């Protein structure tokens, strides 16, 4: 029995290997803010959404569409989804409560009894699950949920529950435990196995005339404590295998509930985030993923969901229509929203690829098979070769992991040296990447770099600037435009030093 709510034919593996740069992505894209908003303080939810969001680059377009459908069902049936989740949690908690000590037991007897107890709890839960399925299955439209409810209907029939109950009763051995054995080394008993006694329903006449096989017996004296212990050891030998089988069965059912909980947790996280965005009137939409080989970034009203979550108020969205574009270079005003823009690109990509909605009015982009961020690690420029060395080291590491349809976000990279050298290094790197059709978004102050790329008149490049009105006021909107010579540092200076007159440093 499988939940299959994340993949059509595969379990969602919470222990899967995350991309090697998961740590860098988390830091550069402020993913913790996103995870916190989805988890709402629940550690388990947080871990599930973390793995789901970060591992999305490894999944294909089919998975995205599959999850989008499931998520639409969840948004439409939020209460039932939360009930299902609560049921899975209750089953798992119930298992933990059951006679905790015997988990570590050295006695098959104790293991068997615990397994019986746990299975009783699980049977109750499975029956409730079945009831929910019976009542609500028709309200779900997605392939994922329909398969799930069909599976419950098939596997958890009333007849099946009866068989299980019979086993649980019989394994209490009210009629004694029948054990078979062979003579092992030194004639000690070996190959012990628990046997199902044969039902003796022979005709009375046959029974009377059949020669009964010899049976010998002995009884342990009531006071013989060591004898009683030896007898229970012998019984342990006999039920060892069946106790293992039953305990493993209980574990399997536990892992079913755990899996169900895990896969539902992702959608619960989505519901949580959705609620917060919708409550503030921020737009969300299901993105339109394009095939990895395409180059497309077409969106409207795309905003940085993490900035929104931090500020708790509406933030400015940007639009772009980039078809067959491999390179986007973003220059312009300091604090004009370049970094925010870059982050919203990365966040939208990750959210799309794990099957979530995205924070935009509309969004269409090609899937990428890897997402890299190359950010300057500190704000100050120390102009030391050690720093450039470190940056280039990280760049080299990224190149080691490069894939054909990767998306690479540069933020103020290679500025740790003088402009000319930095520009030249960056130019060579970017040119090589773009020649391989690696999609690059490059936020930079390096005018020489931006200008040089602009003057080449590349058809597959787009140049963006942070919008600045003539009065110097920033709109935080990113628009298409020619690279500008300064970053309007004077503006910032003026604002801070209170010089009202707008400077024109162009």
């Amino acid at each position, binding site marked *: 029995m499988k939940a299959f709510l994340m993949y059509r034919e595969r379990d969602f593996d919470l222990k899967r290997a995350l991309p090697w740069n998961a740590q860098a992505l988390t830091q550069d894209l402020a993913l913790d803010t996103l995870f916190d908003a989805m988890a709402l303080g629940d550690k388990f939810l947080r871990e599930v959404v973390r793995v789901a969001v970060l591992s999305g680059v490894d999944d294909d377009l089919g998975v995205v569409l599959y999850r989008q459908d499931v998520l639409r069902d969840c948004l439409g049936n939020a209460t039932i989804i939360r009930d299902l989740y609560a049921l899975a949690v209750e089953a798992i908690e119930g298992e933990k409560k059951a006679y905790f000590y015997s988990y570590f037991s050295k006695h098959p007897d104790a293991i068997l009894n615990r397994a019986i107890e746990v299975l009783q709890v699980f049977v109750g839960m499975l029956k409730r699950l079945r009831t929910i399925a019976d009542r609500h299955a028709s309200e779900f439209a997605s392939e994922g949920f329909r398969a799930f409810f069909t599976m419950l209907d098939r596997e958890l029939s009333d007849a099946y529950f009866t068989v*299980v109950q019979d086993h649980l009763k019989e394994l209490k051995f009210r009629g004694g435990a*029948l054990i078979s054995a062979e003579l092992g080394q030194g004639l000690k008993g070996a190959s012990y196995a628990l046997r199902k006694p044969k039902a003796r329903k022979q005709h009375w006449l046959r029974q009377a005339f059949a020669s009964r*096989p010899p049976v*010998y017996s002995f009884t342990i004296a*009531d006071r013989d404590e060591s004898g009683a212990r030896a*007898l229970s*050891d*012998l019984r342990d030998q006999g039920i060892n295998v069946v106790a293992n089988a039953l305990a493993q069965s209980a*574990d*399997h059912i536990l892992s079913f509930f755990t899996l169900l909980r895990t896969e539902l947790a992702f959608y619960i996280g989505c519901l949580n985030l959705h609620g917060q965005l919708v409550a503030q009137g921020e737009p969300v939409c299901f993105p339109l993923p394009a095939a990895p080989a395409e180059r497309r970034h077409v969106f409207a009203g795309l905003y940085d969901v993490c900035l929104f979550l931090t500020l708790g108020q509406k933030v400015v969205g940007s639009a772009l229509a980039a078809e067959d574009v491999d390179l986007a270079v973003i220059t312009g005003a300091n604090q004009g929203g370049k970094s925010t823009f870059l982050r919203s690109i990365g966040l939208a990509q990750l959210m799309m690829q794990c099957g979530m909605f995205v924070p935009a009015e509309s969004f269409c982009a090609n899937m990428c098979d890897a997402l890299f961020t190359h950010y300057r690690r500190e704000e100050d420029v120390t102009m030391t070769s050690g720093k450039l060395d470190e940056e280039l080291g990280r760049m080299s590491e990224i190149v080691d992991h490069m894939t054909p349809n990767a998306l690479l976000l540069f933020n103020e990279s290679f500025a740790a040296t003088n402009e000319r050298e930095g520009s030249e290094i960056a130019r060579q790197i970017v040119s090589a990447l773009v020649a391989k059709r690696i999609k690059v978004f490059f936020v930079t102050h390096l005018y020489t770099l931006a200008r040089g790329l602009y003057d080449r008149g590349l058809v597959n490049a787009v140049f963006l600037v942070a919008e600045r009105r003539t009065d110097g006021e920033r709109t935080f909107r990113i628009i298409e435009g020619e690279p500008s010579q300064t970053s309007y540092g004077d503006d910032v200076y003026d604002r801070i030093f209170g010089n009202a007159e707008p400077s024109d440093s162009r």
Partner: protein
Amino acid sequence: MMFHSILFARAEDRTAQEISEAPAFFVDLNLDQVVAAITIGKQEYNLKPFYYAPLHNADAIQYRHEVMRDLEDRTLFESITAFGAKMRAMREHLAQVDKLYYRYQKESWFLDAVEIYCDAVSCLAADLGRGDLKSRGFLAFRATVADYVASDHFTALVAETEELRADLAAVRYCFLIKGNTVKVRRYESERDYSVDVERTFERFKQGAVKDYTVRLLTGPDMNHVEAQVLDLVARLHTDLFAHLDDYCARSHGYLDETIGTFDREVQFYVAYLEYVASFRRAGLKFSYPRIADESKEVYDYEGYDLALARKLILENSPIVCNDFHLRDRERIIVVSGPNQGGKTTFARTFGQLHYLASLGCPVPGREAQLYLCDRLLTHFEQAEDLQNLRGKLEDDLVRIHDILDQATPCSVVIMNEILTSTTLQDAISLGKKVMGKIIDLDLLCVCVTFLDELAAMSEKTVSMVSTVAPDDPTVRTFKILRRPPDGLSYALSIAEKHRLTFHQLAERLDS
């Protein structure tokens, strides 16, 4: 040829009593470490006495060389080690018989022991029959074993043992535990319940889960409940268990004495060859030395100290091999040169080679001829002993005197750093006197000394020197080469390296 022993061609080659004490020179030559390493893990065979008893004629040595060469064949070696392993298992089973309490259990372990023995001997006979054997020892032993295996006594033992084992293995029974009562009866093909359980819950199977099977290790003995069950099983199979009783009563002396002795003695070779293999894996060579009992021409090429080499192999360090060759009237190797350069190691190697050759073993080196001496005598520096009131010099001389007293023209003497505790003048004069005696006795000798004067005393002495790397005099090569003593040149070359020779220093002080 009548088989006597795999170790001795003739009864008279064997010492009357096994020697339990190591010879006096063992510690000096590090042979104690060598023999400990050879026999480690084989304590049960008590092999050391064989390693403490050198042989005294060339044919006895030849006899062992033949056996050892046969055993260098991988197939035969594996047959013999397999045989040894089975015999060991057999002994462990017999030991278990003594430890157990219940009769049927004892009998069962005894039956197993005999079964293992029969298998061991049968396999050995078959393996030997197939083998391309050349040694007198193995050829004679093969004939003996073949006769034994074909004997009525042995074939009957095998047949009866197999029959009993098969009958016991076929027994299956059931018991029902209810309350304090156990009912025992024959097994009647009841279904395995755990299979039912697994099938019922199969649909939930996810991935791998924990194994809850408890390891119920109860040891080989039984408690009284198990014993009672077994007694009832015996009642279900009366004839079978009566047969077992009878078999055990009849089969006590099943172990053949020749087989038992062979099992122990062949381990002398097995142990040595396993030891040799560890060196060969490191690229070091062993060879079967020619044994000289007339001529005193001795040589060994690419030899090494076994105890040191073993240590270096474990540390993954390189091992330096050395050569020597004494021709014609040459008898004495005088070793001088820088300290820590391998001089003592060289002297030990010379001693080890001669001793191991006298055991009939292959020795370190590519090619060797060694002298069959009547005794091996060593003089290594000892810590001052406060118990005897003699001074160090006096003590040195007393010990040297004792050695020369025992020595005959057929002896080999190893002297390491004699006469270090007196003035140079004294040492030279005394050293020359001692050396004169050695020369007169015509002894084969290695003498490690700082006294260059001893190196060229006579046509019998050969000077060998520990050497350093030509470009860096602080680096030892551990090569001992045949050349005149270096005198002061070593110390001077180090000074030169530090630019502290007279001219260098003068120049530096000028500038």
